[in-house]
Each structure stands twice: as structure tokens, then as C-alpha cells.
């Protein structure tokens, strides 16, 4: 029997398959390996950052800083690789440390000062974007040989699809994150926190360290996403990825995670990303629709999924009440 808690995930999966089938029916070329490879490559940075966002939303929070952190990471890498002799791997490690620490600091602020995550990460968003602007307002090309090597690593499948390394990084991120969320103590704590901080504390969940870790993961994954984005565009640009945090939140919600926290799956986010990528691909394939339809369709989907979530919550509370009602009668 299908558990009602799995329903949003199933709805997401069903939406994706239905959408893909419709696309393929209209444009047979949508079934080519190129489109599959493009979906993975073009959405790699968004997918990675959405994984971090899934953790944050599962815990009942929100992280608005990630788009700016991606831009910051790109500019930081471009400047470091241009002006210093630090090797790229070192620069990657350095930037991942900085972004994780940045996330951890936001997590600590949220927990210890009891501030709403919305406000704290909004401040983080301005800070990171500002820091990117201060380093450079121009788009700085990254011309390091190491980047050429990473970019030339791809597997060309039959049909011409190129599965690039950044798509692989995204899939790996999803797998590792799914294991952490569903198979570790920390993962359980995240879900418990999403059910309510007070309840979680009473259950013995280390709320402080869990909150800090969650935002550190989100910051760190935004950093990783920034590395991937810099590989994707071979440049660092302070104006890049404006509003990506909202796309990531949309992907998480379409993926079936409850915005109030406590319920959702990492795998759902993966399909949320693919659905968004699919809409974009369809609109380019069609070639006559305004690309703003992407936003309209995503908006519609979001609304549908929020209604679905609300409906499920409503149905389950009604059932509980019915059960309680029976108890008092007997």
C-alpha cells in the first residue's frame, strides 16, 4: 500500500514522466541522449544548491543567501586564479571552507540570537553579493589549464549526448545527501527539527549543532555549486545567478518537500530540478513561446504542489481527530 507520506514524491515523479512523455510526443528529438545530457549539465549548479536547500527546508528554515554565495564563489575563484599562484584544487578547498563557515555563522546567528532564518539569510545574501561586487564588477574569464582539463572530461554517448563532469558531481551530491538524510543520526535530527524545535529539544536532538550544520551544509553546497557554475561558464561574474535561491526553493517544493519542514525526500528535489529543466527545454524546442512561460508554468506547479501539501496535512489531521473522537467515546 502507498503511504500517504509518499504521495507528494509520487506526484512529482508522475508529473515528470507525464511531462517528458508529452514533450517527447510533440518533439521526438526530446528523447535523444543530448537532451538527457543537457538536462544534467545545464541544471548541475541548480541541483547541487537545491540539495542544500532541501536540508534547510526539511528543518523548517530557509536560505536566501545561496544565489549570492554562488556568484561570490565564482568571482573569488576567478580573482584567486588570475592574481595568485594558488593551485585550483587549493582554491576550491579554500572557497568551500569559506562558504561553509559563512553558512555555519548564519546557522549560529539563527539559533543563538533566535532570529528568523529569513532575515539572517537575507543579510547573508546582501553580504555575499556585496563581497562579490567589491572583488570585481566585470565578468572575469578563468583561463587556467586545470579548468580546460575538467571541461574536456566528458563521456560522449551514442546520439551525441555529452555527459560532463559537472552533471556527475550533481548526481553524486544527490546520492550522498540522500544517504545522509535518510540513513544517519544527523538526518533524523534534521527531520525532527522540522517537526518543531521544542519537540526536537525534548526528544534530545542537539538543536544548536544541528542548526549550525544544516546551514553550513547549505553554504558549502552553494560553494560547490559556485565551483560547478564557474566550470560551466569559465568565468566569475558578480551579477551571475541572481534569484537562483528562489529557483532552488521552487525545485524543493515541486519535489514534494513540505515548506513547513519535517517532511520530504532528497530524491524528490532531483525530479523537481528535472521538471524545471524540462519546461525550459520544451520552451526552447517550441521556439515561439515567450521564455517567461517557464516562470508561469513553475508558478502554476508550485501552487498545485502547495495545495496538494495542504490537502494532505488537512486530511491527516482530520483522520487523527476522528481517531481521538473514537477514543473519547469508548
Amino acid at each position, binding site marked *: 500500500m502507498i503511504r500517504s507520506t509518499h504521495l507528494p514524491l509520487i506526484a512529482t*515523479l508522475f508529473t515528470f514522466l507525464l511531462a517528458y512523455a508529452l514533450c517527447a510526443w510533440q518533439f521526438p528529438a526530446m528523447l*535523444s541522449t543530448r537532451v538527457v545530457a543537457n538536462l544534467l549539465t545545464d541544471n548541475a549548479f541548480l541541483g547541487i544548491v537545491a540539495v542544500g536547500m532541501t536540508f534547510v527546508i526539511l528543518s523548517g528554515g530557509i536560505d536566501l543567501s545561496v544565489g549570492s554565495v554562488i556568484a561570490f564563489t565564482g568571482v573569488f575563484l576567478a580573482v584567486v586564479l588570475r592574481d595568485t599562484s594558488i593551485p585550483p584544487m587549493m582554491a576550491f578547498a579554500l572557497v568551500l571552507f569559506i562558504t561553509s563557515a559563512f553558512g555555519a555563522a548564519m546557522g549560529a546567528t539563527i539559533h543563538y540570537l533566535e532570529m528568523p532564518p529569513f532575515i539572517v539569510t537575507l543579510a547573508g545574501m546582501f553580504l555575499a553579493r556585496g563581497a562579490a561586487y567589491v572583488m570585481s564588477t566585470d565578468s572575469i*574569464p578563468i583561463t587556467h589549464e586545470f579548468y580546460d582539463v575538467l571541461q574536456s572530461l566528458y563521456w560522449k554517448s551514442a546520439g551525441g549526448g555529452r555527459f560532463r563532469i559537472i552533471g556527475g558531481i550533481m548526481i553524486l551530491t544527490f546520492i550522498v545527501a540522500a544517504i545522509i538524510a535518510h540513513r544517519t543520526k544527523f538526518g533524523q535530527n534534521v527531520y525532527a527539527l522540522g517537526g518543531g524545535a521544542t519537540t526536537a529539544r525534548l526528544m534530545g536532538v542537539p538543536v544548536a549543532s544541528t542548526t549550525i550544520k544544516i546551514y553550513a551544509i547549505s553554504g558549502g553546497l552553494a560553494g560547490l555549486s559556485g565551483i560547478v557554475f564557474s566550470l*560551466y561558464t569559465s*568565468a566569475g561574474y558578480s551579477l*551571475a545567478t541572481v534569484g537562483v535561491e528562489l529557483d532552488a526553493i521552487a525545485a524543493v517544493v515541486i519535489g514534494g518537500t513540505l515548506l513547513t519542514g519535517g517532511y520530504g525526500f532528497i530524491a524528490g528535489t532531483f525530479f523537481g530540478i528535472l521538471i524545471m529543466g524540462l519546461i525550459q527545454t520544451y520552451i526552447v524546442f517550441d*521556439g515561439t513561446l*515567450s521564455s517567461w512561460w517557464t516562470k508561469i508554468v513553475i508558478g502554476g506547479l508550485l501552487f498545485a504542489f502547495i495545495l496538494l501539501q495542504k490537502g494532505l496535512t488537512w486530511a491527516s489531521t482530520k483522520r487523527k481527530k476522528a481517531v481521538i473522537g473514537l477514543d473519547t467515546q469508548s
Partner: protein
Amino acid sequence: MNIKATLFASAITLMPIAVVASDLTIGFSQIGSESGWRAAETTVTKQEAEARGITLKFADAQQKQENQISALRSFIAQGVDAILIAPVVATGWDEVLEEAQDSDIPVVLLDRTVDAPEELYLTAVTSDLVHEGSVAGQWLVDEMAGADCRIVELQGTTGSSPAIDRKTGFENAISDHSNLEIVRSQTGDFTRSQGKVVMESFLKAEGGENICALYAHNDDMAVGAIQAIKEAGLNPGKDIKIVAIDAVPDAHLAIANGEMNATIELTPNMAGPALDALDAYINSGTMPPKWIQTESKLFTAADDNQAIYEMKKGLGY
């Protein structure tokens, strides 16, 4: 079970798709619609494609490079015959251009160039900003015919390439004529409101009767300046000659009303030359030059500006 079956079915159909195209299909990745000129470029591109019987796939990138890269990849996956792109930034195109080249899809750059090796794209269709400035300068040289003239200049956004190049071109054109002198030059940020404000300060500082001509780096600033000149009680176009660049509909209207003297067109028709070059390349293998310069046409009161205004108004400026 059904899901598994569907996945399996889609897995075995993941095969190369042969594209059967009778006539040309061309993908066009546009930056967005941030300015009137860009909206006009989009409209003209669609018209030019339609006139040639080409199916145009249009993708608006909403100012985002990631959207543009993924649009290009989708065009390639779709197997279009050629791609037109107005790149939002200069960097980061190598990978996707290589993919296009691997699939033998020629790419033509419109309006802006990129930092990628030349062999990765077929050609670039752009205007020559320096040339635009020199056409404006030459017009003033001919107009004054040796008479003394004190010029004020409204520059574009400081540091932007149109501002630098249009200034250089104009200065080159007037450098051999000692009767022409730029007495004041300040930025008006390419906007109407700043054009007006800066012109007001020019008029106060120099005195309206001491200014003989205005050179604005774009029409919007000139239109703002016309307002300032009128408010100072002078006749724009007569007391102060006005020359600007872009040839937007409002500039034609101003010339028709005798309030402006000349404008140099930055044509929104980048697609026409691009599609001609593609046609020659695809049908007869003619390699176009790496750079196709669009015409910088001069419009003065001698042209039928009212008619041009009516025509251009509908383009989305």
C-alpha cells in the same frame, strides 16, 4: 511496474534522431528585452526570418548567461541548421560553441562579440562604434563648413565601450578642423533625464548663445537635452545644432519637427546580413568574413523622418 516499463521503453528509444528538414530552421538566442533597441532587434530578426521562409526558434535569456548556454544546447539537441546569438557577456562560450561545431551547426554572433577562438563561430555581425562617432563628427564638419563652433558633448555611461568608442570616433573626425572645439564633455549615462540635467548645467556654465552644437552619444540623451534647451528659451536644432547616434523613433520625430539635425543609425537589423551570410554558407559553401560591419546610416532633415518614425514605431522601440 508501469514506471519501470516506461523507463525501459524510453531507454531503448534513446537513439540518434535523424533530423529531416525541408527548409531552414534557425535558433536565435536573444539576451532579453532590456532596451527599446533590443526589442526592435528581436522584431526585425523575426521579420527577416519570415521574409526568407526560415523557421525561427526564439529564446529570450532574460539577461542570464546560463539560460543562453542551455538554450544553445537545446538548439543543438534539436538539430537546427544554424544558430544566431546575441551574447550577454563575452566570456564562457568555448564549450558550447565547440559542441555546435561538432554537430556542424554554424553560429553567427549578433551585435556583440565573444572571447572565444575565431574558428568556433562563422562570423560576427556588429556595428562599428568608432565609425558611428566619426560619421557624426564628419556631419558636423560638413555642416559648419569652416565656421567656428563650440561643441558640448553628452557622453554615455562612463567606461562603457559605446561611450569610449563614440567619443574617439567623433574626436578623430573633427581633429583636423581647428574651427571645431569640444568645450564641455560630461556623462549623461545614456538616459533622457540625465541628458536633460547635464545639458541644463552646460547652458548655465557656458551661456546658451556660446554653444553652437551638441553631440550626444545616444538619442535618448539628445531628446532630454532638447527639453533643456527649450526651457532655456532657445531653439533646439537652430540655435544649437544637435547630432546624436542610434536613430530611435523619437529622434526621427525630433528631426521631422526641426528640433534635431542629424542621427546615425545603429541598425536593429543585424539579422539580415547574418541570414544572408548563412544562406550563402549553407547553400554554396561561401565563407563569410569573420566580421560583418553593419551600415552606420546618417539621417538628416533631408530624409522623410515622419515616415521613418511611423515605420519604426511599430518595431517595439
